[in-house]
């Protein structure tokens, strides 16, 4: 068996007035799909920031394999209804390349590929400001895929989507996971999605955590604040 893409070992972290995790240990095998579940404010986004090296742990270590390349889709974006750029131009922003305005042939091919992978080719000339919530999420995903990552972190990517669009996006992520071998960390508080689409889950609760295969997930025994997740997310 190959080494896991990510190994977190005895990690402790807290903000000055707010301890978040004590002795957190888990691994993400290559090509796995993992949900990171927990109630609002339990520290999911903070854990992602630790993984990205934006924050330093108080104790413990975070180790990636040398070839890890991260694509990160953050939780909040500010794209208003007058945002002018098309989906394609928006996605293309992540091509930093040589820095000059003109794009190379290879960059155009990569853009086309990312749009194809996210099923956005037909919608690519739509202004982002007018795109639906699902199309926007796909565009964020395409933007992160542009640099050809092998590890994808999605922070609450489905939070503001309706049921069908959620399923569609998750199906897409699953497809990327299978076809490209992407390792995926999917942050959510939607237990149903976690169970249906991911292999294992990391449940964070204040002072505890639990890492299991999703087929062992018993929704009945999960914390109450997560069970009402459906209605809560719809209200977002």
């Amino acid at each position, binding site marked *: 068996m190959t080494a896991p893409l990510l190994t977190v070992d005895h990690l402790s972290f807290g903000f000055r007035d707010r301890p978040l995790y004590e002795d957190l240990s888990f691994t993400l095998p290559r090509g796995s799909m993992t949900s990171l579940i927990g109630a609002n404010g339990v520290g999911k986004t903070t854990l992602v920031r630790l993984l990205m090296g934006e924050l330093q742990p108080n104790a413990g270590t975070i180790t990636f394999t040398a070839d890890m390349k991260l694509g990160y889709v953050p939780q909040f*974006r500010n794209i208003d209804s007058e945002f*002018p750029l098309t989906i394609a131009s928006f996605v293309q*922003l992540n091509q930093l390349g040589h820095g000059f305005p003109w794009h190379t042939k290879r960059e155009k091919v990569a853009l086309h590929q990312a749009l194809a992978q996210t099923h956005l080719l037909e919608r690519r*000339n739509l202004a982002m400001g007018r795109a639906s919530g699902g199309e926007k999420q796909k565009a964020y995903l395409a933007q992160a895929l542009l640099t050809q990552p092998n590890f994808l972190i999605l922070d609450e990517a489905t939070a503001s989507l309706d049921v069908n669009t959620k399923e569609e996006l998750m199906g897409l992520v699953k497809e990327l996971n299978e076809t490209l071998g992407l390792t995926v960390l999917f942050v959510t508080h939607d237990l149903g999605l976690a169970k249906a689409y991911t292999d294992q889950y990391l449940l964070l609760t204040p002072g505890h955590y639990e890492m299991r295969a999703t087929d062992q997930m018993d929704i009945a025994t999960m914390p109450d604040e997560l069970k009402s997740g459906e209605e809560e997310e719809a209200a977002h």
Partner: protein
Amino acid sequence: MFTYDFMQNAWLAATFIAITTGIVGVFVTARGMSFLAHTLSEVGFAGAAFAVFVAIRPLDGMLLFTILASLTVGKLSVKQSRREASISAVSSVFIGLGILFLSLSNESSSYATTILFGSIIGISRQDVWQLVALAAGVLLTMGFGYRKLAFDSFDAVGARAQGVRGNWISIYFLLILAISVSIGAQIVGSLLVFILLTLPPSVAKYLGRTLPQMLVISVAAGLIGVWAGLALGYLTNWPVTFFIAAIEFVFYFIALGVHRLRD
């Protein structure tokens, strides 16, 4: 009308100014910095008044003040939330200083009018070359840093997620904005330079769909405005600034209308 030296100078200066403010303006609007552009115009007035007081050229005074002011704003408020308040604070100090310097230097009020509303006759060939050099400098550095600037301006959250460092880009852009305001003020005056930095880019925002399209539209709207403004000003003897403002205003409303119709 090109037989007059002052018209040639004005034409050359206006062309470079419209190109620069058109391009810089697209990023100003994308970054939500229109308010700061407005304030820097007022700061430019103070800089020019200071220049009169210490007997240096108005453009140099404007550059000095706008750069100082924008860096102060940047220092006070990298965070968006604090920006408006610190901009207001900085601008009040600078406008006060402008009034002070103008009264200390005993200049006539007509000089203040020139600074505030612009004067095409006032531009010498030497001024033109300085403007062209500054404009070229701004455009060249923007060419080199284009991709990062674009990412950070249109999608700051995404840029941060991909590891693009925003603070340096902010400071660099504040410098560029300060220079653009200073050179733009030479033709339309410091009171109305923000027009060139906000209206053509807004036209571009409503009509353009890709960044290159937006840049072309913005520059075109700016160029047509200043060229037509100069010609009309020459023919009628009315202020050039008036015509430029009116033309850009019309463009803006047409673009807004087109944008609405597309819905």
